[in-house]
């Protein structure tokens, strides 16, 4: 809860300066206490569009603090930018790009035209930098940045874009060189299919081959992946020395957990995003020991320069300003502003051509490492660092001039335990079946409430995934605050969610149930937007995971493991399905529910209180849905935007199965689970991507080809037009 209050506080504090900046474009630094305007000969104005809201809000805040660290330092400690004996005050105009490409572009144009900034500092993320750098290029304004590292944007021949950080394709270079020197000979690569992660993986493949390491397989997976077990199963059977993988922080959690679950033990695990973040150690504890990761910068690195002193000095200064240690995104931002500052001083003017020439000539040692740019505008003199988690500490192990500890390789018994390849005669079929059934059990319990509400009430609960998400947060909260196992908190979450369901039914659903589908669809959709963003305001967009005692896996054979958590979810799912089935077929209430589903008017005539039935059904189903969220909270990452994909899967399964059919929900869930697991295991390279597409293709195909569903349900369906 303290975190929640803190986040609200941050939001409120952030609100004031941004409102001011939006209104008049005034700068932030005006309130710096020690600045006496008379001292300065003029002002040099920089501009940046950064993400204060949206998916990059956390990194956007770090980048902004990085820029502001330079700003405070240059105006207060350094005494202003020096140009031919005069001192100029620096200021930075900020806008919030909402993590959105159109907004970022629009604001960059506004910075150039309306705020007339002399120079631009980069936004956060490769995607936003790619778009905004084109605007900078077209308007001949220099952009110096440290947080957009994808190679593609430096292949466009731009003259005005400069990157102080190491480019994405070199992220793994020093790590791979060190590992190859220690004897690694084979490797597998798994990467998210986004711009940045693909560039990192492409670079890794090149560096591996250049160092004599064979790349046995490359697998891709989509953003926001929830399950990498298929990829890890394939990799386990290849038995490589090295695993190289990554994309987002959450992927690192999945890789470590899944490798442990499946008994996949490569000699080294190099994960491109996540290991340098102390959160990962907090979250995974001992499991993450030995994991390697690249880092742009760490306070412990042995770099120093004349401006902020050493890396550690910079970290102290940063912490004195913001009460938290700097992450590398912040250091990169400070370094970008510093590089620009040095180039302006070297050029002796703010003229774009002069400063560009000075940037090209720049060669400086800084707290961030050496900075000098090649003809693309990329800083090629700073190598990427590599860290390793050793006994819960994050220590730099490469390159040699920055290392503070010895690289541990191979880990434990390495891949030596099993010797040869693990593939047996049956191949991966047993594992594919187990994965598919485990996934199907999870989908069954997740989809049930959606199917029954649609079947009985004719309401399409577009906020279904959001109720799962709220239930998952409740379980996570209980787990985080009091250490309650999510399996134990299921009944409580069920009760709480029933109350929420009752309230939503009374406040919203009751008002739209007699209106056409479009109305209820849109109202529930509005509710989904509200729930997502309210939860994001309270808990931030960080991925969470509840801990359960029922984790790990049972090893049946070397190439077959059963995930424990998913097994118990399947058991509980079967129990819930059976219970609901009995309720519907054997009890008086169940008869009333079925009657109301088949013909509301007739049910009313025979004396059934239909609106009471609706209240009970809705509350019960939301309770089940929330409880399902609690059940999967150790498996699926808990985050505010986990709902929409689940809602779509619920659609797909329900459309396949028939509305409100309990057997259908189970059957449809199993079909989807098996199809996804089969595709993921049997298709090389892009199998996991195809598994994600599968449910949507099934959805559309099922609707078009067999709109009444495969299993028949509570409510007859008449989906085709005329």
């Amino acid at each position, binding site marked *: 809860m303290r975190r929640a209050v803190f986040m609200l506080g941050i939001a409120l504090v952030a609100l004031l300066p941004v409102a001011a900046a939006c209104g008049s474009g005034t700068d932030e630094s005006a309130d710096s206490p020690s600045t006496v305007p008379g001292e300065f000969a003029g002002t040099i104005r920089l501009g940046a569009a950064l993400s204060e809201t949206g998916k990059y809000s956390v990194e956007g805040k770090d980048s902004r603090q990085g820029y502001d660290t330079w700003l405070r330092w240059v105006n207060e400690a350094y005494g202003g930018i020096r140009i031919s004996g005069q001192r100029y005050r620096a200021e930075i105009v900020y806008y919030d790009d909402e993590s959105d490409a159109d907004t970022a572009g629009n604001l960059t144009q506004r910075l150039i035209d309306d705020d007339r900034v002399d120079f631009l500092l980069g936004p956060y993320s490769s995607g936003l930098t790619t778009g905004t750098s*084109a605007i900078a290029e077209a308007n001949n304004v220099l952009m110096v940045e440290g947080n957009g590292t994808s190679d593609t944007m430096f292949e466009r021949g731009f003259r005005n874009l400069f990157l102080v950080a190491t480019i994405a394709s070199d992220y793994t270079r020093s790590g791979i060189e060190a590992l190859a020197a220690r004897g690694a000979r084979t490797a597998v690569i798994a990467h998210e299919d986004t*711009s940045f992660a*693909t560039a990192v993986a492409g670079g890794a493949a090149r560096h591996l081959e250049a160092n004599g390491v064979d790349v046995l397989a490359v697998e891709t997976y989509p953003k926001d992946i929830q399950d990498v077990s298929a990829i890890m199963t394939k990799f386990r059977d290849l038995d490589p020395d090295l695993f190289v993988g990554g994309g987002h922080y959450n992927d690192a959690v999945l890789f470590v957990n899944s490798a442990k679950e499946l008994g996949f033990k490569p000699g080294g695990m190099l994960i491109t995003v996540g290991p340098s973040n102390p959160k990962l150690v907090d979250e995974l504890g001992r499991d993450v020991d030995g994991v390697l990761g690249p880092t742009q910068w760490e306070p412990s690195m042995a770099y120093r320069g004349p401006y902020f002193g050493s890396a550690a000095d910079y970290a102290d200064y940063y912490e004195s300003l913001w009460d938290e240690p700097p992450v590398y995104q912040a250091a990169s931002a400070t370094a970008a502003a510093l590089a620009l500052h040095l180039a302006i001083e070297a050029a002796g003017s703010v003229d774009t051509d002069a400063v560009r020439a000075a940037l090209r000539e720049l060669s400086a040692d800084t707290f961030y490492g050496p900075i000098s740019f090649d003809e693309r505008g990329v800083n090629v003199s700073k190598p990427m660092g590599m860290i390793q988690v050793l006994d819960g500490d994050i220590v730099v192990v490469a390159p040699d001039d920055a290392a503070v500890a010895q690289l541990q390789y191979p880990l434990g018994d390495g891949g030596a335990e099993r010797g040869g390849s693990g593939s047996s005669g049956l191949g991966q079929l047993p594992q594919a079946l187990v994965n598919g059934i485990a996934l199907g059990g999870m989908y069954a319990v997740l989809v049930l409430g959606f199917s029954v509400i649609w079947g009985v009430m004719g309401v399409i609960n577009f906020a279904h995934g959001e109720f799962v998400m709220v239930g998952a947060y409740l379980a996570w909260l209980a787990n985080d605050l009091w250490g309650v196992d999510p399996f134990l908190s299921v009944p409580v979450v069920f009760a709480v969610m029933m109350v929420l369901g009752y309230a939503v039914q009374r406040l919203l659903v009751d*008002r739209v149930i007699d209106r*056409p589908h479009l109305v209820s669809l849109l*109202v529930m959709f509005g509710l989904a937007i509200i729930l997502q963003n309210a939860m994001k305001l309270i808990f931030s967009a960080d991925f969470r995971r509840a801990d359960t005692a029922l984790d790990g896996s049972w090893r049946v054979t070397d190439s077959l493991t059963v995930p424990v958590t998913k097994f118990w979810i399947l058991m509980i799912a079967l129990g819930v399905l059976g219970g609901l089935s009995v309720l519907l077929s054997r009890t008086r209430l169940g008869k009333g529910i079925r009657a109301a589903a088949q013909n509301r008017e007739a049910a009313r005539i025979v004396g059934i209180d239909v609106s009471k039935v609706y209240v009970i059904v809705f509350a019960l189903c939301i309770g089940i849905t929330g409880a399902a969220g609690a059940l999967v909270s150790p498996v699926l990452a808990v985050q505010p935007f986990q709902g929409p994909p689940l809602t779509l899967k619920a*659609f797909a399964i329900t459309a396949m199965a028939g509305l409100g059919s309990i057997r259908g929900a189970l059957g449809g869930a199993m079909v989807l689970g098996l199809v996804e697991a089969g595709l993921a295991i049997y298709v090389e390279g892009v199998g996991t991507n195809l598994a994600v597409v599968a449910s949507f293709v099934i959805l559309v195909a099922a609707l078009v080809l067999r709109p009444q569903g495969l299993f028949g349900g509570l409510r007859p369906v008449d989906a085709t*037009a005329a």
Partner: protein
Amino acid sequence: MNSRRSARPLRQWLAGGRGLAATRVAVAAVLAWLIVLPLVGATDSTMFTMTLMFTSVAVAINWNLTGGFTGYVDFGHAVWFGLGAYVTAILMSLQANSLGIGWPPVPAIVVGAVVAGALAGLIGRATMRLRGPYFSIAMLGTFVAVREIVRTWGGLTGGGVGLTLPPYLNRQLFYYVELVLVVGLVALTWWLRRTRFGAALVAIREDELGAQMRGISTTRLKVAVFSFAGASTGLFGGLWAYQNTFVDPDIAFTEVRTIDAIMGTLLGGLGTVAGPVVGSVVLYWLREVLWANLLDYHLVAQGVLLIMVVLLMPRGIVGAFDRRGVSARRLWRFRRRQADDQPEKATAP
């Protein structure tokens, strides 16, 4: 004499009916203002903002063609935007992972629109057999499936990395091109409402079976309109890709474009000519106000706004003024009746 004669049609035009003169004067004034705006010193930034607004207005108008006129509520309309953007990018890009043929922009954007329209025709033939929520959901599924296919088909689309286009950012040119296109779209919908074709579309919404019995080939009509809307949205997608100089699956295919089109149309008035225009502009303005003052809360506020509009203002802003505009209330009532018919037709299992 001469001047009196030339004044007569103008006077007639102005005196078209109660409140109509004022509307026409206002429309003419806004149009004149939009035409001269870039000439009286609007900055690139202003013109860029305006073209983004034109884009959302155009997508809303296109959505309204099927969602408002034929009553087929499309939850995946942004798929045509993304397809137009991607085809344009693939044809224009010189990157090795696209075709690398570097077409000039005009044919690339036109082909993008044609491909989007053709695919809309194909997919529409299948999905428009579905009705009510089933159509909505099938389109949502189509949207996500196409996005994932684009992401997976890396050899052509650059996969998750996306494609970059040569940066050519003449904001004034884009401004005028999109202004002309939006005005053309408004004129087209205005004209459509006055033709038999338009009447047939509304008949599909009001009673599809009845329309069929009166000899209207409903399938052909609704697929034709769906395909046209897809092509038109694809055209704006292509223009957008060119201006953004960069596409990847997540920025080209974003749900927000569909949501904005639906919200803008509902706010302005479903099934009216001016509704999508007025609604999208108001929405844009509202968002700027909310955005400036509410930060993260603005998304919550948007959800609240959506629920309030649906529940309390079903006819939208324009619907409240325009009597000839289709009464959304009537629309709601009708479709409910159709839904109520369902159980009666059914046989008990």
